[in-house]
């Protein structure tokens, strides 16, 4: 599967620019909008790789649900104060952060340079998937047969998280009113 280079550079460029916007924007809501753009660009790249299901899920779950929830919370808390001001950071913190990010970047470059090329392909090549009836069919068949245990475990984990969140929220509400007033 050849990726059309124009679209790849387009989506990658948008992803990079939007990622930069996420950390450079002062307002958290604007950052969140930029993050949605990042997700969208990633979904475009996934779709270019013929992974339509992953692309759809990427938009549906990350951009469509999680970021909406994020935005909801940000706007509800009215966090209009800038989350992080680079100019007020300590010089040492700035220096350490810069060095660390450079090291991380170097590590990534090193990892990509030294990875075996082309990457080893498993059973699930684009042709095999197409022959077996498309992304969603193959993925769901695998998920509900071979990987049923991890799938169920994940759902139990999420359920535990939900119950935990409800429990925490409920306990706060049952405090006496004097205790809540600041």
């Amino acid at each position, binding site marked *: 599967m050849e990726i059309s280079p124009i679209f790849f550079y387009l989506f990658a460029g948008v992803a990079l620019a939007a990622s930069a916007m996420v950390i450079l924007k002062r307002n958290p*809501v*604007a950052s969140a*909008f930029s993050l*949605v753009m990042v997700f*969208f660009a990633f*979904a475009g790249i996934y779709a270019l790789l013929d992974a*339509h*299901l992953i*692309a*759809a*899920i*990427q*938009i*549906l779950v990350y*951009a*469509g*649900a999680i970021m*909406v*929830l994020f*935005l*909801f919370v940000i*706007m*509800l808390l009215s966090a209009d104060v800038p989350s992080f001001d680079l100019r007020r950071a300590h010089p040492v913190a700035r220096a350490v952060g810069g060095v660390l990010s450079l090291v991380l970047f170097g590590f990534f470059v090193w990892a990509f340079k030294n990875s075996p090329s082309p990457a080893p392909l498993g059973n699930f090549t684009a042709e095999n998937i197409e022959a077996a009836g*498309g*992304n*969603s069919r193959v993925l769901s068949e695998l998920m509900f047969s071979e990987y049923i245990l991890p799938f169920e475990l994940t759902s139990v984990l999420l359920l535990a998280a939900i119950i935990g969140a409800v429990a925490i929220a409920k306990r706060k509400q049952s405090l006496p009113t004097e205790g809540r007033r600041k």
Partner: protein
Amino acid sequence: MFEPNLYFWLTIAKFAVIMTIILSVAPVMAWVERRGSALLQNRLGPNRIGPFGLFQSICDAIKFMFKEDPVPGHVSKFYYSLAPVVSLVPAFMTFAVIPFASSIEIDGRIFSFQLANLNVGILYIFSIASLGVYGIIMAGWSSNNKYALLGGLRSSSQMISYELSLGLSVIGIVMAFSSVHLNDIVAGQGEAIRQLGPWALPEWLPIPKWGVLIQPIGFIVFLTAIFAETNRLPFDLPEGESEIIAGYHLEYGSMKFSLFMMAEYTNMFVASSLITTLYFGGWHGLHWVLNLVPVEGLAREWTRIVLEMAAFFLKVGFFMWFFVWVRWTLPRFRYDQVMDLGWKVMLPLSLGNIFITALAVYYGWM
């Protein structure tokens, strides 16, 4: 060298037709909404300009275009201008995978009446439709107005709540037809129902296997959820004139405002197409006319396509009218009622529907 053949021109024509239909939905629906609401309320509505007041929409459009486009000083300009576009584009994108007629064979190639046949089908619709809320949130937030912000907040929470039941209610359909391809789902609805629970139905009974008949609970949940997703009454809390003035588009005027209106009507169109495709047999329903028309060969095939399109758009038209009809019948829910309905009624109902459908599929009742 690229040689444009008939197939190529047909594809171009298909795009042109679809875009024309989608773009003309907003003005026509604006007229239908105004006339329809008037007639439902024993009034007449706009009836001066053109036959039945049909040209009122054109006048509105001209007014919208030539009106001053004020940008309030307190908004954040970039996102303020971006928001109408962000709400309109997903509405346009969603229609791409909806089949509005079956396929036809031309020059040995299958020409399908659908802009794109993705193998994720319905997931694509949901993923793109879930982006529509960003336009509203962005508008609400960038307007820097407390009412607009409230509208945006309401919209986001409403979307999150009802997207769940929307997705889960469609799972039943996906299970019943064992496909996420909209083409397969529509094709499956062309067959007749042979099973009613554990009992087999007689062969001569021509009940079509439409989604609404085999998934009644799923259909009710889907219909409710799609009303909430399109922000139409009784779920138009993001606008809520009497509470938060106009909600998210409070600070908008002229063409920017009309883009929001267009987005709403386009969303309605897509929602109606979805209801038709998933629950009312898509383009099925007018094939019997084919036996009355004495045409043969390719002409017969084209007649079939025309009939299918007619059936599809008739059904879509009915549901568009249904949106208007419901809007002028039901009052707006209170906010807590919306949340209660979403989480305490619709979500358990859709989960129960999945369970029942799973049982039915397992025992071969479907």
